[in-house]
């Protein structure tokens, strides 16, 4: 078989295209990029022979040679596995390389050997690491049955499990471990003693006397009672410093707590950004060009991993649906372009009205959450017990209202968007953005209403201790309890919806014959909504970890169970969405939403740390006004040199100059990107014109050829080519007898290629 495997050959082994094209330097370099060095030398001789015969001048030979040399050195390190040749060729190539290898000096050999063994070590390590990944087989199974779109949801879930585990380990090692280890390492623990009078009263919440069983359950679900004064919540960490006499050093727990909080936020940020880097690059490239929907669907649309007949049928129908949607979009674009001014005015007016309506709905939801929070807090404070269920409902009132709002609003948004007359792709994105906003802001509203209660001490009265110490002797624990309740309730809702809505739905659709069941249809796994659900849970976790250090562990366990619940529900109940969600952009979309959640989570923490005075009755920051104050106090106790450095770093001069330098760097990068874009456009135009030039020249050459009398008739073309061959591609047909063998007749024309 011929060496050139990019282009097909006929039986005799010759490449069946115009030999003139073969001599073009661009074609030679294309061949070389795919060729082995050994065959390259053979090729060089052939091409040299041909070009000398055609007499096209020495410069072409030398340029070809130069290009070949350059590419040969690039080719040397290319892996055999990556060459598009058959197995027999690969084996020959390997032997040839071994032969070359023997010829090197001992230093060269040793270098090659170490390089090779290092690469193999790295590959093996990567192999082992990827085989140890959690849930590999489950995710493989899901991919086979449902394709890569849903796969991305589950690998996102796996990422969150890992993230929460790392955050928990961080908090544990920095905050909990010293406290637990202190008695065993004979550490001397100094507790916070602040004699602030009323401010430091913290009534014990342990239940006394005979406690009902359901009281324990209610405590477990709401984080009160026996759970309140445990490691679970902020209030337990009343330690200021731990002194270890064995190593003669003091561990400042207050500082550690603060730094751990900042650290886990930064860690999450870096990890998410790193993970989204590849997706972002691809997203930019994709957005740069015209959206290549049709080519992408035809050539890269079929998911080759599918091995299940049903899944294949579904994939086919979803591809069909996508193509039809795209055709529809083209038609809509046409329609939009034809809109009259009157139509435009009507549509803009309608959109404005609907947006106002949406804002109104959101405001109503937020007000509902605010009222629910107030009611819940008042019920807790008044401590009147009606009965078990009503108490529990009052406890969970904010969670219930948030969940209801998050259930109704997406339905409402998807109905409203139909009237706003956008293109289908934009509709999906806009609805999603609205839902994201709704979900993440509802947590913010809850926290805001909590804070307004905490810092409200009565009309026209300023708070004595900086917060309302009568109602909230330890307000951080109370906020932690709210976050804990939200997490638990979220998990219960997900499990309950799966059990009590999806399974019955499947049973009804499967066994009932009535038209209503058929219309309702089988459950679809709606990826965007599910992703929003887990991002919501993760945002709560981020906010809550400061107030409830064990929350990441709880979230890890929660996501662990959610994986299995969702997987079972998917396999048993669902069919893939008829509106497919593309894997490529979906990965990027998930991480963007997660980043939004992270930013929205860091706002409340920043406010709690810096603005609101910390409790004086509990927690590690009793001796300070606000939690942030630990840092300046510690810095002032540091040695002179370090103190001077830190002051310089935080001074205005440094900040301003840093800001200026960052701005300059950003402007530079933006300018560079603009220049690259312009170069790319120019190159693209150049490519197009080169192609046209080539065609033109070939046609001219063929014309000139046919106009001359041919002297040596040994390889005369049997059928003379018509001078004006209309279609370009017929000259490259695989019919050998018709192609022009330019190599064997000296060209008189001066257009050398």
């Amino acid at each position, binding site marked *: 078989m011929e060496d050139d495997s*990019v282009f*097909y050959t006929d039986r005799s082994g010759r490449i069946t*295209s115009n030999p003139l094209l073969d001599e073009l330097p661009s074609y030679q370099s*294309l061949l070389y990029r*795919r060729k082995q060095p050994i065959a390259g030398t053979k090729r060089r001789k052939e091409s040299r022979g041909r070009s000398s015969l055609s007499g096209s001048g020495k410069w072409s030979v030398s340029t070809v040679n130069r290009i070949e040399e350059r590419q040969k050195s690039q080719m040397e*390190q290319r*892996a*055999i*596995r*990556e060459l*598009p040749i*058959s*197995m027999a060729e*690969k084996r020959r190539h*390997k032997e040839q*390389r*071994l032969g070359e290898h023997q010829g090197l000096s001992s230093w060269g050999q040793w270098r090659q050997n170490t390089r*090779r063994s290092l*690469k*193999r070590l790295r*590959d093996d390590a990567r192999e082992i690491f990827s085989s140890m990944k959690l849930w590999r087989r489950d995710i493989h199974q899901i991919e086979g049955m449902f394709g*890569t779109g849903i796969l991305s949801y589950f690998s996102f879930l796996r990422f969150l499990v890992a993230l929460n585990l790392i955050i928990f380990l961080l908090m544990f090692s920095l905050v909990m471990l010293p406290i637990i280890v202190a008695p065993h390492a004979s550490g001397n623990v100094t507790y916070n003693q602040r004699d602030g009078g009323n401010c430091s009263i913290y009534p014990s919440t342990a239940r006394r006397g005979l406690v009902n069983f359901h009281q324990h359950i209610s405590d477990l679900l709401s984080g009160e009672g026996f759970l309140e004064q445990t490691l679970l919540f902020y209030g337990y960490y009343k330690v200021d410093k731990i002194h270890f006499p064995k190593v003669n050093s003091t561990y400042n727990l207050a500082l550690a707590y603060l730094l751990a909080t900042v650290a886990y936020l930064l860690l999450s940020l870096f990890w998410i950004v790193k993970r989204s880097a590849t997706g972002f690059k691809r997203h930019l490239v*994709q957005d740069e*060009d015209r959206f*290549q929907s*049709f*080519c*992408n669907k*035809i*050539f*890269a*649309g*079929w998911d*080759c*991993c*599918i*091995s*299940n*007949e049903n*899944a294949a049928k579904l994939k*086919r129908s979803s591809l*069909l649906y996508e*193509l*039809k949607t795209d*055709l529809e979009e*083209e038609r809509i674009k046409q329609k939009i372009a034809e809109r009259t001014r009157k139509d435009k005015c009507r549509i803009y007016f309608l959109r404005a009205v609907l947006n106002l309506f949406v804002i109104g709905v959101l405001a109503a939801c937020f007000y509902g959450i605010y009222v629910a929070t107030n009611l819940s807090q008042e019920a807790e404070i008044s401590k009147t017990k009606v009965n078990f269920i009503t108490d529990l409902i009052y406890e969970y009132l904010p969670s219930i209202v948030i969940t209801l709002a998050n259930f109704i609003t997406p339905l409402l948004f998807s109905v409203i968007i139909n009237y706003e007359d956008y293109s289908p792709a934009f509709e999906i994105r806009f609805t999603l953005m609205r839902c994201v906003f709704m979900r993440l802001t509802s947590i913010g509203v809850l926290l805001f209403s909590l804070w307004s209660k905490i810092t409200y001490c009565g009309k026209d009265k300023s708070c004595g201790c900086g917060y309302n110490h009568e109602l909230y002797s330890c307000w951080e624990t109370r906020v932690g309890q709210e976050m804990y309740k939200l997490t638990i309730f979220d998990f219960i809702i997900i499990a309950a919806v799966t059990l009590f809505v999806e399974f019955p739905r499947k049973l009804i659709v499967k066994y009932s014959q009535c038209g209503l069941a058929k219309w309702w249809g089988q459950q679809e796994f709606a990826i965007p909504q599910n992703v929003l659900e887990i991002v919501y849970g993760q945002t709560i976790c981020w906010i809550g970890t400061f107030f409830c250090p064990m929350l990441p562990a709880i979230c890890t366990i929660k996501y662990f169970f959610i994986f299995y619940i969702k997987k079972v529900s998917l396999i048993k109940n669902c069919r893939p969405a008829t509106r497919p969600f*593309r*894997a*490529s952009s979906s990965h990027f979309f998930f991480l963007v939403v997660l980043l939004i959640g992270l930013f929205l989570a860091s706002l409340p923490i920043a406010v709690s740390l810096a603005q609101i005075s910390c409790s004086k009755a509990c927690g590690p920051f009793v001796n300070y006004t606000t939690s942030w104050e630990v840092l300046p106090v510690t810095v002032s106790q540091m040695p002179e040199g370090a103190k001077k450095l830190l002051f310089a770093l935080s001074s205005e001069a440094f900040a301003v100059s840093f800001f200026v330098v960052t701005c300059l760097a950003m402007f530079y990068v933006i300018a560079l990107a603009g220049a690259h874009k312009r170069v790319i456009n120019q190159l693209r135009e150049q*490519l*197009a014109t*080169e*192609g046209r030039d*080539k*065609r033109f020249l070939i046609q001219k050459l063929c014309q000139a050829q046919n106009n001359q009398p041919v002297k040596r008739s040994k390889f005369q073309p049997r059928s003379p080519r018509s001078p004006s061959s209309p279609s*370009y*591609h017929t000259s*490259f*047909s*695989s019919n050998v007898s018709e192609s022009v063998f330019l190599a064997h007749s000296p060209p008189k024309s001066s257009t050398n290629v």
Partner: protein
Amino acid sequence: MGNKQTTFTEEQLEAYQVALHGRYRELAPHLVPLDYTNNPDIRVPLSLIVTMPELKENPFRDRIVETFSEDGQGNMSFNDFVDMFSALCETSPRELKTIYAFKIYDYNRDNFICKEDLQKTLNKLTKGELTPEEVTLVCDKAIEEADLDADNKLSFADFENMISKAPDFLSNFHIRI
């Protein structure tokens, strides 16, 4: 992307062969010998290879097998078999996949993906569910998107350029075995 080894070791070649030989043999146990030490020239026909679960549901299975077979008719020797799964595996580099994808989609093997090739591809994908006007429209749009040198068909350069911007290509164009 892709492993950057310079050679196969003997052990790795063995490992590949042992793992895939079982799969190759179970396609045609009467044809394929257990003993491959003397490199027998056995070729499993196309009709048996496309019954593999990994290929069964793929609309391009015939073209894939034909592309990787030496004789171009789809009868694969064991070497071709290993080659196919190696080129289509997850860690295979993008350039390699692009080259083979071009060959797979080029039905008439003229080194260009012309409109007829595109129409055949589309019909295989959708199993004839689109109307002929829709098929023509989609093919026109696809050529319009990808054709750079305005010759109304896709050369390898056009194809490569288009695939490099296709976001789903790498994640979809691989077979797990």
